[in-house]
């Protein structure tokens, strides 16, 4: 599993590093976008998350300490109060036991007097009794009739006899009421050994001590003995002498805090302390929610801020990357287009130079052929009785015709390459179009071609070369006428594009062309009219428009027709050195 994950991660990061090379695929931008997004998200969200987590833990620690410390102090204080309370009374009992003689204590009147004093001084003392070495209570004062009772088999008695002094946990005893007993064995040497003085303490006093902790209504505090039996009643977990429903926490004489869940399913914070010398455990239970409320609020706020931050980062990263990559894509496209255009024009230029060279070289021998053939024709014509005169005349005629054809081709070639100066004048494009149309109107009439004119009447005058523009439009309109069937339609529209440009579009509903053909139409010698055309018309047109600072756009669909749009600048900006 781990290895698989590692492999996947490695693969992913290697795709981050390597950049796909296939320049024209849209995959490239997708990948680029993904890589940038992932990297940006990683470098922003990772530290944010880390910082958030670290803060979270530090805060939690601090908050926890902050919340727990007062609890511990409270428990410690209360524990001390208990200890003090019990120690005070125990030492009093011990003092009484030591400072009176056996007989004095065995005397009930005497004991009553001591008890009345003691009750006045120490609240919570219920009764006082003196036991002889056999465990029989020989004297007693208090609200119960317990004189003469034998305590020999009681646990507390046995413990007292073993330890000398003892504080019991809560039990019912003969009186059937929960109380605790503190007993001291007389330890004065020699005299009435084994006699025990005992006092009973009311557990109500314990409740007062607990009430003095002033806990919230949701909280609970109580005393347990070390077996987990309730010594004071609890609000939620049971009455006196019932058993605490949870396992006892580990032994600790210092206040300690445990987070746990009570049998009712509440999350609680249990603070407790074991008593060193007494058989008690003091416990304070608070619901965790209550204690940690401030922390939860803080946590929620922090979490919301984190989520909002992450969302914001996502948004910004995605938007930014999108914009960036789009920009990149556009500029790539532009660069590619510019590159293609440069390629195209340099190709045209070099082909043009080649064509000029070829034409020129051919023109000279062509001139010789022309003159020789002409001479033969002359000779034949001027001698009245030349044998096979007619045949020879037709032969030389054919030669001269062929020369004428060659000359047309070379002259067009040269026209393609020639550096004629542009003569700029201010002209109305609509007029130029109408002039050109006068050349083709006859053909349109003849072939029943519908010529639709939609010329913008307010078309601004432009500065350009009239003759060259005529050639341009003538070429394109001728092509349109050739593309349409008899009865087809050619639409010529002139319009203003923007502040600097006007345009003329020539639309036909002829055969159209494929993308492949469209890619090549401006190249010299590319022709679809096999045997009929030189393939120079459109490349010359293109050259002229470029020279005039304009542009040609073609849109075509096979079977639906073609639209040529010629864009021309309003101000002359003839390109140089073409």
């Amino acid at each position: 599993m781990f290895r698989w994950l590692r492999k996947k991660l490695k693969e992913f990061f290697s795709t981050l590093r390597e950049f796909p090379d296939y320049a024209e695929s849209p995959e490239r931008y997708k990948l680029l976008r993904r890589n940038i997004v992932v990297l940006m998200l990683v470098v922003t969200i990772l530290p944010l998350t880390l910082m958030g987590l670290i803060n979270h833990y530090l805060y939690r620690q601090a908050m926890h300490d902050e919340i727990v410390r007062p609890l511990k102090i409270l428990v410690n204080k209360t524990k001390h109060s208990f200890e003090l309370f019990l120690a005070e009374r125990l030492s009093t009992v011990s003092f009484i036991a030591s400072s009176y003689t056996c007989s004095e204590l065995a005397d009930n009147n005497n004991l009553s007097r001591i008890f009345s004093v003691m009750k006045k001084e120490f609240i919570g003392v219920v009764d006082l009794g003196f036991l002889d070495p056999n465990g029989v209570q020989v004297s007693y004062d208090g609200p119960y009739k317990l004189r003469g009772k034998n305590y020999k088999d009681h646990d507390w008695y046995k413990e007292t006899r073993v330890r000398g002094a003892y504080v019991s946990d809560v039990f019912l005893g003969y009186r059937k009421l929960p109380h605790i007993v503190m007993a001291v064995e007389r330890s004065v040497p020699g005299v009435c050994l084994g006699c025990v003085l005992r006092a009973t303490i009311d557990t109500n006093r314990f409740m007062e001590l607990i009430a003095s902790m002033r806990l919230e209504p949701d909280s609970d505090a109580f005393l347990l003995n070390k077996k987990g039996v309730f010594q004071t009643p609890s609000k939620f977990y049971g009455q006196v002498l019932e058993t605490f429903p949870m396992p006892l926490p580990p032994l600790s004489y210092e206040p300690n805090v445990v987070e746990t869940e009570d049998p009712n399913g509440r999350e609680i914070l249990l603070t407790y302390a074991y008593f060193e010398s007494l058989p008690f455990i003091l416990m304070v239970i608070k619901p965790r929610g209550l204690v940690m409320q401030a922390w939860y609020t803080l946590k929620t706020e922090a979490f919301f801020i984190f989520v909002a931050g992450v969302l914001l980062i996502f948004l910004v990263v995605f938007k930014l990357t999108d914009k960036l990559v789009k920009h990149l894509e556009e500029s790539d496209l532009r660069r590619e287009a510019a590159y293609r255009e440069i390629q195209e024009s340099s190709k045209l230029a070099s082909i043009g130079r080649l064509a000029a060279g070829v034409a020129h070289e051919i023109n000279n021998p062509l001139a010789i052929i022309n003159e020789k053939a002409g001479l033969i024709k002359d000779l034949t014509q001027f001698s009245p009785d030349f044998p096979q005169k007619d045949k020879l005349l037709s032969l030389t005629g054919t030669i001269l015709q062929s020369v004428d054809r060659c000359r047309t081709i070379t002259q067009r070639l040269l026209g393609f390459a020639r550096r004629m100066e542009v003569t700029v004048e201010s002209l109305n494009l609509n007029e130029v179009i109408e002039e050109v149309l006068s050349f083709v109107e006859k053909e349109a009439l003849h072939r029943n071609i519908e010529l639709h004119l939609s010329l913008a009447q307010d078309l601004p005058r432009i500065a350009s070369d009239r003759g060259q523009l005529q050639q341009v439009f003538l070429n394109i309109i001728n092509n349109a006428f050739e593309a349409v069937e008899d009865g087809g339609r050619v639409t010529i529209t002139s319009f203003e594009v923007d502040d600097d440009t006007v345009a003329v579009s020539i639309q036909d509903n002829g055969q159209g062309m494929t993308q492949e053909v469209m890619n090549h139409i401006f190249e010299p010698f590319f022709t679809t009219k096999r045997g009929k055309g030189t393939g120079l018309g459109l490349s010359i047109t293109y050259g002229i428009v470029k020279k005039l600072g304009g542009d040609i756009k073609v849109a075509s669909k096979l079977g639906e027709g073609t639209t040529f749009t010629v864009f021309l600048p309003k101000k002359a900006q003839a390109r140089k050195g073409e």
Partner: protein
Amino acid sequence: MKVRVLLVDDEEQFVEPLAMRLEARGFAVATAFNGEQALDYIKGKEVDVVILDVLMPGLSGVDTLRELKKIRPLTEVIMLTGHATVETAIEGMKLGAFDYLMKPTEIEDLVGKINQAYRRKAEHEERIQRATLERIAQTRGF
């Protein structure tokens, strides 16, 4: 009197048949195969129209034209050119050539141009003659 034509071109194969054809059409044709030859010829003999190729080895058509005009300002010159050197031909016309023709030429065009050129030269000469006559007449008037 026959129109006197001097045909200047480095291509012998072009010059000779053309010379013969022009002669057949009633011109008195002389030939030269480069600029120097043409200038030599012109120093010795009067010529009405010179047909001058623009692109020649040695002295170029334009240089030849310039020299020629110094020697015989009245002689008309028709520049003969391959298409790519139209600009040169135009420059020639600025220097005083009568017109230019593109190779290969229709013989009829050439003949037409030669006749035009000759007429212009003739008119020119006539004007000069008349001017001279008038001057003589004026001088006589004094």
